[in-house]
């Protein structure tokens, strides 16, 4: 029985239900860091290397938030989750690849880090070894790990299905982890506008980082569509229309989803949420913008966020964008 700390950022929004179920099935306690806040951001800025992008700094802050409260910090080395791209070499952003080492070497007084390497290029079977490795580290017998993994996979599937029903991760996560919960979404039933909000899960769904973008949209009666609400198959089909796929998992999802939403007649506009100094996004953002203009007449808004982004700034821009969309609809 150990306390496992999971930082509430980066891959958390994609895979938390799996790990939460897995660890609690094995009899361990999962501690999630507090939602991102000024304190966490400040800690992150202090600990992380100064040239890092804001999500990586926030990750450091979350780790600092957990340190001292847990026995282990769960920071897997996310290498890849599928074979994709022109040469089948898709990985996560290089910063994900070096993340456990970055954290270990730039922060002091940390509990041991569980840095298993998740590389599923050769197929999903590789996940069994990842789970067993964690089991060995925590002293759980093989059989227990197997059944925990099975249960966790089922919960993760349920979570992914809920996302595909156009439910946002916050609610989907609670529903997936509470047995017997009925799906219900806080998204507007009769939306005034439908907007595709694209970007990385950790920029779109982190309310602090994007200064409440999603709640601003909800208040304006806007239904939000993200890349996580689509099936991989649908997105990959659109990916084939590009001269070359990108090398990064989350970027490919964002770009391919953009191309898909451009084809959907009921979408009113596209918002790209990007973090300051994000390497891949320097390409992703311009590519999205150019493709949006080439393939459709949809308006495109790029929201860049950094440690100094203020709520009013984002609100003003989003409201102006929405006004423009409404005006445009009337004039069409």
């Amino acid at each position, binding site marked *: 029985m150990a306390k496992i700390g999971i930082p509430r950022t980066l891959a958390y929004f994609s895979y938390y239900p799996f790990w939460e179920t897995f660890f609690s099935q094995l009899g361990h306690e999962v501690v999630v860091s507090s939602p991102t806040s000024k304190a966490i951001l400040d800690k992150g800025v202090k600990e992380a*290397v100064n040239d890092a992008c804001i999500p990586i700094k926030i990750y450091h802050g979350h780790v600092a938030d957990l340190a001292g409260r847990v026995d282990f910090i769960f920071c897997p080395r996310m290498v890849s989750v599928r074979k994709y791209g022109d*040469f089948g070499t898709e990985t996560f952003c290089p910063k994900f690849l070096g993340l456990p080492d970055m954290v270990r070497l730039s922060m002091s007084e940390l509990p041991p880090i569980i840095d298993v390497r998740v590389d599923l290029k050769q197929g999903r079977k590789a996940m069994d070894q990842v789970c067993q490795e964690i089991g060995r580290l925590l002293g759980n017998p093989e059989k227990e790990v197997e059944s925990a993994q099975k249960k966790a996979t089922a919960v993760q599937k349920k979570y992914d299905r809920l996302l595909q029903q156009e439910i946002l991760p916050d609610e989907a996560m609670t529903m997936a982890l509470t047995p017997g919960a009925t799906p219900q979404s806080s998204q507007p039933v009769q939306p005034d506008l439908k907007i595709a909000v694209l970007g990385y899960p950790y920029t779109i769904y982190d309310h602090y980082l994007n200064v409440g973008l999603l709640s601003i949209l909800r208040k304006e009666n806007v239904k939000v569509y993200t890349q996580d609400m689509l099936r991989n198959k649908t997105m990959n089909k659109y990916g084939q229309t590009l001269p070359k796929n990108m090398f990064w998992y989350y970027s490919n999802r964002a770009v391919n989803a953009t191309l898909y939403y451009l084809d959907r007649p009921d979408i009113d506009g596209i918002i790209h949420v990007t973090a300051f100094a994000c390497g*891949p996004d320097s390409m992703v953002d311009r590519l999205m913008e150019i493709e949006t203009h080439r393939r459709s007449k949809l308006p495109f808004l790029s929201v860049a966020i950094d440690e100094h982004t203020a709520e009013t700034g984002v609100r003003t821009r989003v409201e102006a964008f929405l006004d423009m969309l409404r005006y445009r609809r009337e004039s069409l």
Partner: protein
Amino acid sequence: MKVSFPHMGYSPIAFKWLLENIGHECIMPPEPSKKTLDLGVRYSPEFACIPFKILTGTYLEVVEAGAELILTSGGMGPCRAGYYWVMHQYLLEELGKDVKVMAFELPLCDLKDFWKKLRYLRKTGGVSAKEFVEKVKITWEKIKAIDDLEIRSHELRPLETKRGETTRKLDLALDMVDQANTSEQIEDARQEGLKLLNAMTLDKSRNPLKVGIIGEIYVVLEPAANHYLQIMLGEMGVQTDRSIYLSSYTRKNTIVNLEGDIFKMAQPYLNEAPIGGHGVNSIGETVLYAKHGFDGVVQLAPFACIPEIVAKSIIPSVSRDLDIPVLTMFIDEQTGKAGVQTRLEAFVDLMEYKREKKFSKEESLVI
């Protein structure tokens, strides 16, 4: 066809020769200047790294000069550089430029595509396959000769007695390589060039500091991008060893190639390879330079370069463990020459002080 390519260090000499000798007209890319950078910054995405911006500028300049085809390299990621050509094609099209960007992906990844593009180049130039192979071989000889001369110049510059003489002699030597047309002529030019460099009046009594230069390939190889850092260091009396040369892969005598697997060297610090670009190399090379008794290491990287940021966060630990000072410089369009110089001077002072301290300690031990 009018063909061009990115400017990288002294290599255009060789690539120009290749293009002209396989039947194309070469639009020589100008050395990146203020104008290049201004153009690049204006039309590139804001957070794109500096090599991307310089290339955008260069491409716009060569298109202005009439280039119809731009040759460049591809990549398999996860460094952004592998996606440059796609973005550049998009950007140039958006600007209404009628030019094709052709990228050679790694033959390891897509051999068929690689051959297809070579074939295209050969056919449009109108030379036979045999001739083509021969010209490529001679080009390779040129690249090696250029690198040999450059390496020698960095060794000798800190010993020169007339400031700037090495640079002048190197230019003469490179001109000779530029004029050479056969393997024999290139070999002659190489020998003559080396002789020219060796014949300078040198002050052999000096014991220059030794510094390793590591980091991202473009800012390391292109002096205009790093404000002629190696020359600057040389004129401050520092001997530099660069981790990357275009001909590195075939070299046996450089420090980086001496010890086998560079990834193994980095493993105690970064247990994952590759992470794109030269990220892991930078860590491994710092270890190597420390082992070879270098006085310090300068890490060069473009602002927001993903792999080098990972490396930067890890290098302080290497530096502490192996007691080697490392100066990291992130270069962007705002970086000024005076800024680079000031930081280098301070770094050199620090290394000199460190060396003195070490010597005085050793002396006191002898007594």
